[in-house]
């Protein structure tokens, strides 16, 4: 019979333990997991990139629902275990679920420490531990204002950088005279402080918080001992963690600072193991994942009867703030018997410090230039005698023995057992062997097979170098297609970095992302212009010189250099007055061709560029606005006659089409967007081959997306059913906004949604009302700046130079 294994807590440590367990014994255990958090297992280390906007929650999931199903694990989400009955061998959760165990693992992690200040219970006082905290911070960031972060350690600094990137004003309060005083000396702490100041983050050191000031039950500010009051919309406490031992203690297990375990990871009850940050082992409590993963392996082995022992770990860590490189490992406390080697280069912003004892490294801090981190860490762990290279040690591995090596050679020179991935304890030979033995050729493959670079990601560069070493030319690190010849970055990276680094002009993007050309090319400039228009609707000044001619002059260029003009006919409906105005304009300007388009409106072709403003002027008087037939933006919303006339019509398809077109006109999108609304499933407006389509039925509105009928032909996918017109509008708008934010330039909706997965679109738009609402609101906000008729602007004189020659030379002058 299978053994019943129950796990309390679903954090990073037990996640890893379960992976090993199922590798060792795929069918040996019947596993039940309780998780106080209402979700699957995710990579907690990556919360900071989620906070800063560089990643999404979906990107950091380690085990999705399908994984639990495949392994046959019962996962109780949102279920906090409140009691262990060691006699009956059961656990019970606060929502009433009881499970019995043969073996129990307590992996309750740790809890953020909250300083018992007056005001600590006010709304808006947050901690930084799980996804809920991140969501609360993101929510606060949308409202704007100032965030005060108490605590200038790794976690507090990551939170501060993320909140700043989300647009909040940020102040960091730190009790000690300089940041990260345990790792950095004051001068290096100052470098770090300056790097934060450069990002617009205020750092106040020697700041003793007196109380959190509230107003109407909410945070309003923070008062310091010296009387200073700092306004705050939120306060984030990041002053340390305490092992989560309450449950274990109440159940009578032996605890001290953490739950006490032996080298076999058993607690004082032999049927109960403890794992993760809640553990105290040989008087040590850990706050980083690497040691926890080692514990996880030990437990998995022991559960399978393999008598393994955990003997403790030394740890190293990196600060994960994009653009600030900081690596630290080991012990930094000053003592009589220790010496230091320090290297400082203020102009380059580099600081390196090694703490030595008996000619061995016991601590290393690198700031600004961290590539030697793993090498120092290796010397530290192996307790290598460094007396022979002491003179040049601080300059790093490249300077040992002869001339400086290039980085590839440095990696090649690392010993086989040098640790590459600190989080997962993966050494060089394990990675190299996996690359060769399993024919791996991408970073993702290496992550999947060895776990290297799969946690905090800071060893990614080293892993890529190992790939290059093993595969040579065959390894192409840029498996992503670069945007164009001006950059190595793909569209997705550029979009992500524009938001993360708050880049708001094309020159800023090119500068920060190290463009290889001085002013881009005809491929990247229009794309960047769109991304900036989309991401900063209120701040970005549209760059006309980076727009394709059609979007620059708001008409379609023809093969002979003339232009065509297509006015909007909302939903394809027109009137005698409009038709008369068109007829008059055609006569007045001698327009050679008038054609009904495939998009239910009228095209006037063959207009000379110089005449465009006058043509628009006349059309404008009759109430016409631009049909944007030239735009990577909303084109047409085709409709059928619907309930007003048709004997089969079930809803007002014409009215809804017009409403959508009036709501969404003027918006820019990655590629053109065409829609249609049909009054019944006979589908006369061809809604099932559009980017977004709606089929009206008696019970409501069936929303479709991802159709195509141009270069490719593809029927739509169904998004879902809604009951009212209002809901239909909200869903359609949210879907288009999601596409606006994620699509690559020139990628139509059908390609984008196929790339990210149709289900993902459904999940975000149909199932997640908050997300949908947020997309909707962002669209509405950007429309404030987009719904300006470009034709009337130009009739009133904007861009006049576009439409007139600079000079007309008389024939005499040419003689």
């Amino acid at each position, binding site marked *: 019979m299978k053994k019943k294994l129950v796990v309390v807590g679903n954090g990073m440590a037990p996640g890893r333990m379960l992976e090993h367990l199922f590798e060792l014994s795929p069918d040996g255990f019947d596993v039940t997991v309780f998780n106080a958090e209402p979700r699957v297992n995710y990579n907690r280390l990556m919360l900071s990139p989620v906070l800063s906007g560089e990643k999404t929650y979906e990107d950091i999931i380690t085990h999705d629902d399908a994984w639990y199903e495949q392994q046959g694990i019962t996962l109780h989400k949102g279920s906090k275990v409140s009691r262990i009955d060691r006699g009956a061998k059961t656990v019970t959760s606060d929502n009433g679920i009881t499970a019995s165990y043969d073996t129990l693992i307590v992996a309750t992690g740790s809890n953020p420490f909250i300083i018992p200040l007056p005001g600590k219970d006010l709304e808006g006082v947050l901690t930084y531990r799980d996804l809920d905290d991140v969501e609360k911070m993101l929510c606060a960031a949308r409202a704007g204002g100032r965030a005060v972060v108490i605590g200038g350690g790794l976690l507090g600094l990551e939170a501060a950088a993320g909140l700043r990137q989300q647009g909040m004003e940020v102040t960091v309060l730190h009790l000690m005279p300089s940041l990260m005083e345990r790792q950095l000396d004051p001068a290096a702490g100052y470098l770090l402080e300056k790097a934060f100041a450069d990002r617009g983050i205020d750092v106040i050191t020697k700041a003793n918080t007196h109380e959190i000031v509230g107003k109407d039950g909410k945070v309003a500010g923070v008062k310091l001992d010296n009387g200073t009051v700092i306004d705050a919309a939120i306060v984030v406490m990041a002053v340390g963690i305490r092992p989560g031992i309450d449950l274990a203690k109440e159940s009578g297990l032996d605890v001290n600072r953490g739950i006490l375990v032996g080298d076999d990871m058993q607690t004082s009850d032999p049927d109960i193991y403890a794992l993760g940050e809640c553990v105290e082992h040989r008087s040590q409590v850990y706050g980083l994942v690497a040691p926890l993963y080692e514990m996880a392996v030990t437990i998995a082995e022991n559960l399978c009867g393999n008598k393994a022992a955990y003997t403790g770990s030394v740890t190293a860590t990196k600060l994960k703030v994009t653009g600030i490189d900081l690596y630290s490992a080991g012990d930094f406390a000053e003592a009589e018997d220790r010496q230091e080697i320090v290297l400082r280069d203020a102009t380059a912003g580099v600081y390196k410090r090694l703490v030595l004892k008996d000619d061995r490294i016991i601590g290393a801090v690198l700031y600004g230039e961290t590539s030697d981190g793993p090498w120092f860490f290796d010397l530290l762990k192996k307790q290598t005698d460094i007396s022979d290279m002491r003179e040049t040690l601080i300059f790093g591995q490249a300077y040992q023995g002869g001339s400086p090596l290039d980085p590839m050679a440095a990696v090649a020179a690392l010993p086989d057992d040098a640790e590459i991935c600190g989080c997962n304890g993966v050494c060089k030979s394990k990675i190299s062997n996996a690359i060769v033995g399993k024919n791996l050729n991408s970073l993702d493959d290496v992550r999947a097979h060895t776990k290297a670079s799969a946690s905090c990601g800071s060893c990614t560069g080293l892993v890529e170098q190992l790939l290059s070493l093993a595969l040579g030319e065959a390894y192409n690190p840029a498996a992503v297609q670069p945007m164009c010849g001006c950059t190595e970055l793909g569209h997705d990276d550029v979009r992500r970095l524009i938001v993360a680094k708050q880049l708001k002009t094309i020159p800023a993007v090119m500068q920060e992302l190290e463009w290889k050309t001085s*002013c881009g090319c*005809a491929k990247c400039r*229009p794309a960047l212009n769109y991304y900036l228009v989309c991401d900063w609707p209120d701040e970005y000044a549209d760059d*006309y010189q980076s727009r394709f001619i059609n979007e620059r002059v708001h008409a379609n260029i023809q093969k002979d250099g003339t232009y065509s003009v297509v006015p909007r006919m909302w939903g394809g409906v027109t009137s005698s007055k409009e038709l008369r105005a068109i007829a008059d304009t055609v006569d007045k300007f001698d327009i050679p061709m008038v054609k009904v388009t495939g998009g239910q409106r009228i095209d006037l072709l063959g207009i000379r560029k110089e005449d465009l403003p006058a043509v628009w002027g006349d059309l404008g008087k009759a109430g016409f606005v631009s049909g944007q037939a030239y735009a990577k933006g909303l084109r047409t919303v085709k409709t059928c006659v619907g309930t007003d006339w048709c004997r089969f019509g079930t809803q007002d398809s014409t009215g809804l089409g017009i409403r959508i077109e009036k709501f969404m006109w003027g918006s820019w999108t990655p590629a053109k967007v065409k829609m249609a609304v049909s009054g019944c499933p006979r589908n006369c407006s061809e809604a099932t081959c559009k980017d977004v389509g709606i089929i009206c039925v008696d019970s409501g509105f069936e929303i479709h997306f991802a159709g195509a009928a141009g270069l490719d032909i593809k029927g739509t996918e169904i998004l879902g059913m809604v009951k009212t017109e209002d809901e239909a509008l909200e869903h359609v708008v949210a879907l288009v906004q999601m596409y606006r934010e994620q699509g690559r330039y020139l990628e139509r909706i059908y390609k984008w949604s196929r790339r990210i997965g149709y289900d993902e679109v459904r999940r975000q738009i149909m199932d997640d009302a908050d997300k949908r609402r947020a997309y909707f609101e962002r669209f509405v906000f950007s429309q404030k700046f987009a719904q300006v008729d470009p034709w009337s602007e130009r009739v009133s004189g904007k861009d006049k*130079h576009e439409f007139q020659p*600079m000079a007309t030379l008389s024939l005499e002058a040419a003689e």
Partner: protein
Amino acid sequence: MNALTENWVAIGAVSDIPRRGSRCVKNGDTTIAIFRTVDDHIYALEDKCPHKNGPLSQGIVHDGCVTCPLHNWVISLETGQAQGADEGGTLSFGVKLDGDSILLDIGGAR
């Protein structure tokens, strides 16, 4: 170029042309596109793409080149020659600056 055929005419000011943009000068039946680069160099080409006569003045200007709006050929502003795999060239004209004023040589296209 033969000095005898030089014929310089003032066509306007540098500031009349947007940076990374272009304006046209009509000279009888010929249209000449005047380009201004990001670093304020001025060039003049006949407004006719060597491919199918596309109006180069309507293209995107980047790094000393313009991309034709019709089928994306890339033309050098300096020489009028198509870049990359495409072959062909358009006429280029001499340009001088006199302070902010642009002088165009309509005497002899190169």
